[in-house]
């Protein structure tokens, strides 16, 4: 399993792995928001957490469709499915998700404090948003794995994957943003939405790989 994790990290970092595409997209989205919204610094600070979350959500969706398709295109997926006796397929999926998250999504989390400055956010708000992104984005990847597995046999399933899983990621967005606001706006709570966000991630860490593994098994042809 460690070998699979390392291989996927290597593939993501090498030429054509697409790890940088997500972070460039994230940067582009956040960089154009101040131009569209206008120079109202108070307004920017108020919508900052939400914009960071929406940007990170869309950037995470961007590379998800290749999660299993690259392995299918070169025949590796057949062998990963055949190895079920040695490695539980759901666990294989989970490891692939973790590797994908580490290469493509963790850089977004790391970059979010810098992009928070673009949005004129307070340090506490930046810290809270980064923390909620760190806890919440794995859930998006894990939900996305189900969509990627369902659409694995479609040659251009990229947009389809995003459309399938976007509704399912709405709770992650809602609790992520409300926890970020809770950290700076006084009456709103931080801990309750943050814990629910953590619970969503843990829930999909179990359900996502199981559902994706079932979809992959039945997709073989």
């Amino acid at each position, binding site marked *: 399993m460690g070998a699979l994790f390392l291989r996927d990290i290597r593939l993501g970092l090498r030429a054509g792995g697409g790890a940088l595409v997500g972070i460039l997209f994230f940067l582009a989205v956040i960089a154009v928001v101040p131009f569209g919204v206008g120079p109202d610094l108070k307004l920017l600070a108020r919508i900052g957490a939400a914009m960071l979350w929406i940007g990170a959500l869309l950037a995470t969706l961007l590379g998800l469709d290749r999660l299993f398709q690259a392995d299918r295109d070169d025949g590796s997926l057949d062998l990963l499915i055949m190895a079920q*006796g*040695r490695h539980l397929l759901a666990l294989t999926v989970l490891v692939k998700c973790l590797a994908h998250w580490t290469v493509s999504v963790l850089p977004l989390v790391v970059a979010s404090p810098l992009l928070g400055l673009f949005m004129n956010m307070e340090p506490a708000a930046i810290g809270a948003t980064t923390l909620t992104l760190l806890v919440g984005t794995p859930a998006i990847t894990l939900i996305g794995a189900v969509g990627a597995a369902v659409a694995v046999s479609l040659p251009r399933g990229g947009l389809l994957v995003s459309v399938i899983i976007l509704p399912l990621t709405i709770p992650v967005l809602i609790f992520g943003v409300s926890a970020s606001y809770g950290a700076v706006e006084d009456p709103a709570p931080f801990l309750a939405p943050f814990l629910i966000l953590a619970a969503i991630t843990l829930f999909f860490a179990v359900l996502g790989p199981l559902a994706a593994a079932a979809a992959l098994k039945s997709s073989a042809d």
Partner: protein
Amino acid sequence: MRLIAENLGGERGGERLFSGLDFTVSPGEALLVTGPNGAGKSTLLRIIAGLLLQADGTLRLEGAPDAYEGLVAASHYLGHLNAMKPVLSINENLRFWQEFNGTGQHSIEEALEFVSLGDIGHLPFGYLSTGQKRRASIARLLISDRPVWLLDEPTAGLDKASELQFARLMQSHLNEGGIIIAATHLPLGLDGARELSLGAVV
């Protein structure tokens, strides 16, 4: 150890390709699956590999070694695709499959020597020619131990010398009590291989 298929039927996209297949393969035996294009050779191999469900009939591996649970776990599958990543080197690709599938009796260096790729293991897989890719993929069969080899057009793209070399590798696998089921149009150079002809109607 015996691989037994009883009354096996396969279909593809609702179209029945073959039915009522009965065969038994014992250790040291090779079964060549032949037939015209579209007769269901690849489908049969994918059914044996557990990647497709059979339409009817049963398939089992009797008396498999304890290390393997069932037919799929005891099988190596070499399909049309090589299951290697173009951006990783041959060594990296093979090391991954060895760690993922379990260490066999041959090291990666030995396996690459067997397929005459010993001196270019550091090259990215994407740089190789078709035949070299196929040989690297054959090396994957050697680095993890599986008693059953399922080979789909294994010699596609190989030159004469590599074909002979591969025939020797298959023969030594059979001599060690392995089973080979290969879909092919060309003779593989195996002594005493039985033939299963699919789709006799042209």
